[in-house]
């Protein structure tokens, strides 16, 4: 059995919850002096994260984003305390499909891992180590295994049920959650996307989705209320419209959208879509980008390169990646997780609303690409489309070591992007959530060399 001991209140979610509660004490904006004071008293790892978020150009939106994430965490606890159900979902399951139920709160596995990495001293390593101690493979995905490792200790916030919709698009994600459910004896609900983009495949997905809704109704002991659905999905629609506004703002040169908004967009998408908080955060990002566009502001002297990350980014050093790139003139236009393709849902009836949510779920990142008839073809099409839309000069594949399904197609995607669009791709290697594998300084060197020797000369 695992030798790493996690004592009461040392679980990732509990600790992150405590760490994030500091945010409540911050005003909505800070002066540079105040910011320095805050960074001075924070532990090292958290201070490094806050340094990225509190950069002057994004400070106000960041504080709002962090406060909203804090609300999300707080409400997960509150929901349980009030007798509701916290439901663990993967990032590719739309949270609004949970919010439409009264007294149900989505807790998103990968976001929890990321919050742990961002906020905790020692990041998520002790939870990862605990999972490894149980014998789980070291080629597992840290995006899940950090948070799951913590829950497995039985000393952390435990979800009441798990929804998994990753099989067919990510083996390790689906197996990890299946294991967690069995080990902790938590109910497991699931949704498969047939790897079939024909009409038959799409209709089958809808069938499965409607079946899941029935199972959720049964689990939660309630029938969906149409008025609540309309309210939640109406807010989701507002957030989706703001998403597309922000998307369009990325098209300007130099890009007026700060790099870290990529993360903040999907952080919000994967946790709060369907709430007023998501609308507020998205609006704030749009406002900042518009102001920057108006002033033609850019953090470097010139925009040297516009990069589109084809899958995930790196999350263990926000300042080292997002801010460093921007200050070096390299725009991060977004990554594969930003390709959430939110559509506006028809709010006419229960049926139109459920069909709308099903369609959104079918097009969530990873589900849409890796769960397609051909994972490399759909992925390539989406990246090509995004690269054209956003006028990207280059692509970067982060090479998260556990993404076996994207590693399977990365070579084809790179060569076809070059052949069809003349867009070069840099393939990196590392673990997006664990700093042990590739240090940020090494990644910076690779990116710098690539931009200097390939992109700028191209």
């Amino acid at each position, binding site marked *: 059995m695992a030798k790493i001991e996690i004592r009461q209140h040392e679980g990732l979610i509990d600790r992150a919850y405590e760490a994030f509660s500091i945010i409540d004490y911050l005003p909505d904006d800070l002066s540079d002096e105040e910011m320095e004071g805050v960074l001075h008293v924070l532990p090292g790892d958290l201070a490094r994260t806050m340094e990225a978020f509190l950069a002057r150009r994004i400070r106000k939106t960041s504080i709002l984003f962090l406060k909203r994430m804090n609300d999300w965490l707080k409400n997960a606890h509150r929901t349980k305390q009030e007798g509701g159900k916290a439901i663990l979902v993967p990032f590719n399951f739309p949270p609004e499909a949970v919010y439409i139920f009264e007294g149900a709160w989505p807790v998103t596995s990968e976001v929890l891992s990321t919050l742990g990495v961002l906020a905790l001293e020692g990041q998520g390593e002790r939870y990862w180590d605990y999972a490894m101690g149980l*014998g789980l493979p070291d080629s*597992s995905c840290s995006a899940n295994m950090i948070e799951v490792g913590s829950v497995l200790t039985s000393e952390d916030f435990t979800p009441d049920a798990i929804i998994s919709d990753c099989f067919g698009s990510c083996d390790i994600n689906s197996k990890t959650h299946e*294991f967690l459910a069995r080990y902790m004896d938590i109910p497991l609900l699931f949704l*498969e996307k047939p790897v079939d983009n024909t009409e038959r495949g799409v209709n*089958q997905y809808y069938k499965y989705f409607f079946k899941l809704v029935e199972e959720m109704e049964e689990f939660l002991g309630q029938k969906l209320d149409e008025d609540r659905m309309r309210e939640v999905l109406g807010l989701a629609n507002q957030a989706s419209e703001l998403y597309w506004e922000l998307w369009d703002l990325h098209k300007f040169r130099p890009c007026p959208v700060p790099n870290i908004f990529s993360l903040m967009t999907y952080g919000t998408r994967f946790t709060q879509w369907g709430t007023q908080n998501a609308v507020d955060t998205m609006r704030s990002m749009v406002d900042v980008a518009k102001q920057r566009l108006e002033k033609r502001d850019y953090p470097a002297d010139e925009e040297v390169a516009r990069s589109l990350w084809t899958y995930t980014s790196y999350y263990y050093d926000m300042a080292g990646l997002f801010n460093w790139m921007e200050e070096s003139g390299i725009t991060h236009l977004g990554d594969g997780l930003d390709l959430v393709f939110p559509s506006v849902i028809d709010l006419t009836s229960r049926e139109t609303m459920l069909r709308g949510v099903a369609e959104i779920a079918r097009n969530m990142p990873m589900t849409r690409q890796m769960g397609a008839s051909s994972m*490399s073809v759909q992925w390539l099409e989406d990246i090509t489309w995004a690269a054209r839309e956003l006028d990207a000069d280059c692509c970067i594949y982060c090479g998260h070591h556990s993404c*076996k399904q994207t590693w399977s197609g990365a070579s084809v995607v790179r060569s076809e992007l070059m052949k069809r669009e003349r867009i070069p791709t840099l393939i990196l290697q590392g673990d997006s959530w664990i700093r042990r594998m590739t240090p940020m300084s090494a990644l910076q060197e690779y990116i710098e060399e690539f931009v200097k020797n390939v992109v700028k000369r191209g």
Partner: protein
Amino acid sequence: MRTMQSQSTDLYSEYVRDWKEKGGKVLGYACVATPVEIIEAAGVLPYRIKAFGHPDTELGDAYLARFNCRFCRSCLQLGLEGSYDFLDGLVETNGCDHLRGMFENWQHVKKYDFFHYLKVPHFLREDSLEYFTDELALMRDAVAGFAGTEISDDALREAIDTYDEVNAKLKRLYALREQTPPAVSGTEVMQVLCTGSSMLGRDFSDLLDEVLEEKAKARVTDYKARLMIMGSATDEVDLIADIESTGALIAADALCFGSRSFWTRGGESGDPLALLAERYLGHLFCPRMFNDYERRIEYVLDTARRAGVDGAIITYNKFCDLHGVESVSQRMDLERAGIPVLVLEKDYGSKADTGRVKTRVQAFLERLGK
């Protein structure tokens, strides 16, 4: 048996060569969820793709990555370098992330005229079974078109009967291995299975008659412990031989190339496609199947008890997510049932791993007091 031993690790075996020379067509498939009966009913040879521990992966690595399972990289290597040019087409399934990648890259480069994707659901429920039955109808049409023939229900029933016969004979072979003392070793059983996976069912059935007759009175006596082996897709006859060279006898298995490919093939439907759907999706004891762990572990425990094993080896290829995660629960449940376990993560086909594997098995035997 000697003929089988000489052919069992030959990709383009004499049997396949002969079939091709007579103008026969060959379809490659890799996943145990592929109903070979449909292929055979069309008069086409179903050929299970193997790599036999082929160690080179340079071409495979150029398309897949070193974070992908090496079994898939080795198969892809053989496909890209031309060793599989005798195949007339491929049948892909969504078995796992690595397998999908292998097929996509293989087809991307080789561009077979016939490439069919059989979509296998990841869970068993009435609605998924219906979907899979429809998938099999699509596969029947596609294979029939490829073979230039019709696949009638009668032809399908005949193929199903043939495989029932094969499966029954394989169970007899397994019984010979499970008995004390056994009549056949684990290595020999693996050789038989690998040979059969490149043959028509009807010919394999005849061959099995010969093997069963030859082995009926044989006895394997020189072994220290009876072990069960289970885990991810492996066709490594050498791996079994290496393990048995330490004094262990592989008396039972729950391998994808082994018992899981034939042991449980039940079904009740009168319609042949619905029957095949039940047989394959309903009895796919692979960790790719979601929410079905209880049945899988029951199958494993039944097998272990029947063979009276002293211990179990759970082996999986590095980067295999499905078996890697599953191995944790399996280990816990086997140990709870009083069966000691060795979890052996290995690099497929790596000769450099041989010494390490042997050492760990030897240590395991010592742990068992053997």
